[in-house]
């Protein structure tokens, strides 16, 4: 069942009309700069098998330094997961979520070292991409909002010979301001964010950018790529003009409707893409079969149905690897958790290695 809008949605336009109005730098930028300064030598000098331990040690330290935030996060995890997991389980999950995010940054920073970062990647479900290509309508790739996914999916598709256009906002990148507070800074945009996008762009055919103005021209670009049989990827999230709230873990999660709507409008399949970690530096990129939409004369109802189907798939993947999903804290909970039992791997969180 989908929940009717209105729903929380992050606007596509920034509050500042132009970069000139942005603050030069923020405290979060400085924190991020310190984080990068600590992580960069680790990524270059330590072997990868030590990254998990380093990431966890740093994450435990951060969790200890910020007990108020840790308590809030654990409370949210408790709301979503119900009474099953112990406090120790929840703390371990909280730390592991942070650690996975940190490790993803280590992977990106390692890419700057000569020789780059060389994981073993396997593309599963390639037949769905081939079928879309054969049908000549391209495909919209709905990439899971998981740690590791942003870089790993791009690399895997690139290595498999797929040229992908990726949709992202103008402020995409390392800058914490661009990710969370939605107030870009000049330093964040010009330097911090570029640390991430410069690496990602190596594996993309192009980056289609939702501009600062919120202008809709990028949609024509996406439509053109799809009609030309191309692949357009985007990260499943709630940045957009309209969103649909889907049921997830007994709560509600907002998902933007624009990209699925475009796929439906063009007649291109909407293919969910997930990342599964199989080893220290071994990942599967799993392309799922096209998300079906219930036949309906009402396109909005069809999209809501399609996104709810996606939520079912997403929940099953999260249950398998709960530490990969940082979206726990964006869930809107209606009250007590309605799920029964903890995610499969919560009892024995093992670093996903």
């Amino acid at each position, binding site marked *: 069942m989908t929940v009717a809008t209105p729903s929380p949605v992050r606007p596509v336009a920034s509050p500042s009309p132009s970069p000139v109005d942005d603050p030069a730098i923020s405290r979060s930028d400085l924190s991020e700069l310190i984080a990068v300064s600590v992580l960069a030598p680790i990524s270059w000098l330590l072997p990868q098998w030590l990254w998990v331990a380093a990431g966890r040690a740093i994450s435990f330290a951060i969790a200890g330094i910020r007990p108020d935030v840790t308590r809030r996060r654990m409370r949210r995890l408790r709301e979503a997961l119900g009474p099953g997991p112990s406090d120790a389980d929840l703390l371990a999950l909280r730390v592991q979520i942070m650690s996975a995010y940190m490790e993803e940054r280590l992977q990106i920073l390692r890419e700057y070292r000569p020789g780059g970062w060389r994981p073993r990647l396997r593309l599963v479900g390639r037949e769905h991409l081939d079928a879309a290509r054969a049908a000549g309508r391209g495909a919209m790739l709905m990439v899971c909002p998981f740690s590791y996914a942003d870089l790993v999916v791009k690399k895997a598709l690139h290595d498999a010979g797929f040229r992908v256009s990726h949709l992202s906002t103008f402020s995409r990148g390392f800058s914490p301001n661009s990710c969370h507070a939605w107030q870009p800074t000049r330093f964040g945009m010009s330097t911090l964010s570029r640390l991430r996008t410069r690496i990602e762009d190596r594996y993309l055919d192009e980056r289609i950018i939702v501009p600062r103005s919120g202008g*809709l021209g990028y949609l024509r670009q996406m439509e053109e790529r799809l009609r030309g049989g191309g692949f357009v990827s985007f990260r499943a999230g709630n940045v957009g003009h309209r969103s649909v709230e889907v049921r997830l873990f007994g709560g509600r999660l907002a998902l933007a409707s624009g990209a699925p709507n475009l796929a439906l409008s063009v007649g291109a399949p909407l293919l969910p893409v997930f990342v599964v970690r199989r080893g220290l530096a071994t990942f599967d990129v799993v392309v799922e079969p096209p998300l079906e939409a219930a036949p309906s004369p009402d396109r909005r109802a069809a999209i809501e149905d399609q996104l709810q189907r996606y939520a079912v798939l997403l929940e099953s993947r999260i249950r398998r690897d709960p530490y990969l999903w940082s979206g726990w804290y964006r869930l809107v909970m209606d009250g007590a958790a309605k799920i029964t039992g903890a995610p499969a791997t919560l009892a024995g969180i093992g670093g996903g290695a």
Partner: protein
Amino acid sequence: MRSRLRELVPLSRDGALKESDGLLGRGIGIDSVEALELVAAMETEFGITVRDDELLPEHFETVGTFVTFVEQRLD
């Protein structure tokens, strides 16, 4: 133009459109793709051309701002 809009805008078919009705993301609540389709329909209907850089969200804020936007192109 308003009657054509009424036909094209999702969820507006059952009620009267007012100038002040929100269009993109609020009020009637069309999304970006529906906004683009609206523009395409207007281009076909009135023989106008809208450039990519003209597709700014402020033109889709309300029914009134969108009508004004199309009317300016007709001029």
